């Protein structure tokens, strides 16, 4: 993996993300020294001072591995994705944002215009009588200042560049990160195109007891105090463990909270929401269309949030209908304010 006997180069970059993945990397503790021993870290803005121009100056494919976390929703982030793709042999979509959009990807229920309106045009606490908006170029007395372009639609890393591997999770648990780093160090990576992680669902590793599921009514988390031993879905709480890839150790159900799906879809599942629909359809205990509708309307008031919390940007449909696209209006719903 190394070139000319020098240490292999590692880059860690963040696009539209929250920093949780960096904290998870720091969560490997003193093993960070091993990483530093084995690799020459050339970019890691949260922790290290390397700047953009040093990356731009590098030869193509001179970075051995790039761990890229964060989704792509500005031209700067796309620029960085392309730049790092060009300079790296192996590109890893690190964490849920890069993999499937994660929570930033929920912005795909709205548009740039709506976000800007709610930020800058609001005529009240925002004191902006001239309707100032951030501009791609601003002329100041001293010179030109640039801002990147803000997209309507959040994209995942593999929607803008080729990606060899994906490490799922929001964030990936530190132990899983160390396993992946070890695989890289030892040259033990699977086939390109693989998601590095477990194959099955959170249910498989969850310690709660499962028997039969016959749901007459879904419950919101604040409506009941669930039994700590029994499967949450059986008690009517919508737990996304049924569609979510294992890897976290089913941590949330162990503190009494349902899985929210942060590790993304299990192996073989493309659309997380489709899998949730499939699974929930099997447990709803009714054959009467009206009753079924009632159970759904009452228990799932927010299908986008409940089914696509992390994976909207990577789902089949990727976003909700843009107002006015294709010359027709989307169906009237409480999609946006």
């Amino acid at each position: 993996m190394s070139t000319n006997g020098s240490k292999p180069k590692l880059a860690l970059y963040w696009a539209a993300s929250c920093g949780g993945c960096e904290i998870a990397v720091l969560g490997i503790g003193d093993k960070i020294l091993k990483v530093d021993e084995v690799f020459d870290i050339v970019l890691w803005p949260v922790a290290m001072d390397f700047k953009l121009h040093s990356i731009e100056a590098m030869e193509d494919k001179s970075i051995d591995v790039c761990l890229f976390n964060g989704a792509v929703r500005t031209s700067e982030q796309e620029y960085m994705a392309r730049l790092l793709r060009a300079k790296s042999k192996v590109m890893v979509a690190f964490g849920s944002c890069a993999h499937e959009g994660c929570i930033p990807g929920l912005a795909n229920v709205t548009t740039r215009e709506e976000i800007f309106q709610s930020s800058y045009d609001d005529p009240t606490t925002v004191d902006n009588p001239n309707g100032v908006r951030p501009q791609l170029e601003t002329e100041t007395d001293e010179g030109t200042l640039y801002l990147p372009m803000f997209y309507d639609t959040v994209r995942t890393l593999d929607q803008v560049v080729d990606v060899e591997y994906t490490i799922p999770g929001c964030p990936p648990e530190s132990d899983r990160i160390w396993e992946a780093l070890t695989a890289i160090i030892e040259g033990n990576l699977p086939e390109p195109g693989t998601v590095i992680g477990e194959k099955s669902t959170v249910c498989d590793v969850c310690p709660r007891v499962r028997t039969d599921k016959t749901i007459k009514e879904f419950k919101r988390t604040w409506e009941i105090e669930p039994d700590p031993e029994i499967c949450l879905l059986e008690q009517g709480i919508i737990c996304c463990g049924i569609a979510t890839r294992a890897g976290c150790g089913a941590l949330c159900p162990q503190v009494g909270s349902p899985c929210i799906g942060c590790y993304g879809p299990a192996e073989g599942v493309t659309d997380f929401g489709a899998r949730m629909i499939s699974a929930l359809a099997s447990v709803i205990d009714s054959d009467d269309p009206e009753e079924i509708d009632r159970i759904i309307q009452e228990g799932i008031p927010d299908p986008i949030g409940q089914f696509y919390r992390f994976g909207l940007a990577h789902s089949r449909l990727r976003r909700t209908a843009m107002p006015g696209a294709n010359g027709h209006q989307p169906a009237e719903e409480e999609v946006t304010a």
Partner: protein
Amino acid sequence: MKRISIDPITRLEGHGKIEIFLNEEGDVANAYLQIPELRGFERFCVGRLAEDMPNLTNRICGVCPEAHHIAATKALDALFHVDPPPAAKKLREMFYSVFFATDHTTHFYALGGPDFVMGPDAPAAERNIVGVIKKVGMDVSAKVLKMRHDGHHLLKMMGGRPVHPNWGLPGGVSRGITEEQRQEIERLGREAIEFARFSIQLFNDVVLKNSAYVDLIVNDAFTHKTYNMGTVDANNKVNFYDGMIRITDPEGVEFAKYHAKDYQKHIAEHVEPWSYLKFPYLKDIGWKGFVDGVDSGVYKATPLSRLNTSDGMATPLAQEEYERMYDTLGGKPVHHTLATHWARLVELLYATERWVELASDPDIVEGPFRVLPTETPTEGIGQVEAPRGTLIHHYKSDERGVLTHINLVVGTTNNTAAMNMSVRKAAMGLIKKGEVVTEGLLNTIEMAYRAYDPCMSCATHSLPGQMPLEVTIRAADGEVLHQLEQFLPER
């Protein structure tokens, strides 16, 4: 003019770049801290389930998710008009204290600290946590790593995961702790107090005894006389979990004190076309530009601000250090931005002491740990001090608990104007005609914002704000025909 670009800024949470313009003579004409991102949480959370907010807002920031998680949870209590049982409140505050201690540790050792331990113009490759570990040695490093490890271990024990907990509910928390866990939390808390004292000692030895650093701290290039904001308890002592918001003026005199729900009366925001981030300022003073002083509405909400606006710390060791800091720096308030690192360590000490106070309370394991809401949700505001500043979550929902409106005032956002000013002043102070601009010099300018421990992910959630409005339409005889209301805070 020539333009120097520091891109990206590093050792903070989030994205940004600094653009410095040099005039013909080689002096700095101006410098701008541009933030190139925005996420739109207040827009895309509309239509979501209210109880999802502690989990959704976690992802505003992975360094301080616990701040959002708890602020969101408190907002849910208010939204659902439910009062959690005492053990739940104590647990939440204890959890919060553990988080605060861990976060401040991360900042001091991994983000801001390397500038002091390695030196601001040490080679870039060494100015980082790895460089610090190598320089201070494995003994010291082991302490730091242990603190972070213990902190995350306890956060995971209580909240489910070390990053992005899944624990808060309207009316309480999803799970309490056992007596065994309480003992472990208390034991690790006592060790954490020792670690906090050790960190202060380290700061003393490495920074305060180094005259070059002390000069940097008190240097005018890194000094701004602005208003300060923080949360205080009933005795005007610093409290991270609950209390009233207090603002003091550049001389240290109280300017305002209010409940979080009245925030819209006190804060307004300014927009510039060269940054996605907006610039909050005090409404009563007004926006006068990126300037200091009692006539400028610019304010700061940092650890130093919290210490400046309070009358002291509520725990003994932290109070001692608070007094020592102000004695050393010449009294209150202190306006030296780099002294924020010291204030942060005072807070670290307070957080660990508070952690132990709460963990030693035997009632904290006595359930129940939640009550079920019975009332229809309407509107609620939750507030905490995030490590980086005052944090407010404000929600409105329909009768099903589906959100119709969200407003967030986030810690770092409070400081955006001050950060810009700090960067500009530092650039002007350090780059003078004829000076060779080295990479180390640029890093020293970056120290100006690093002291704020910025969390740009937090700051760029976006902040719409709405004006509370009540309109009554009367007929000529005074009869009320119609009443309109929007965004009124809870009465």
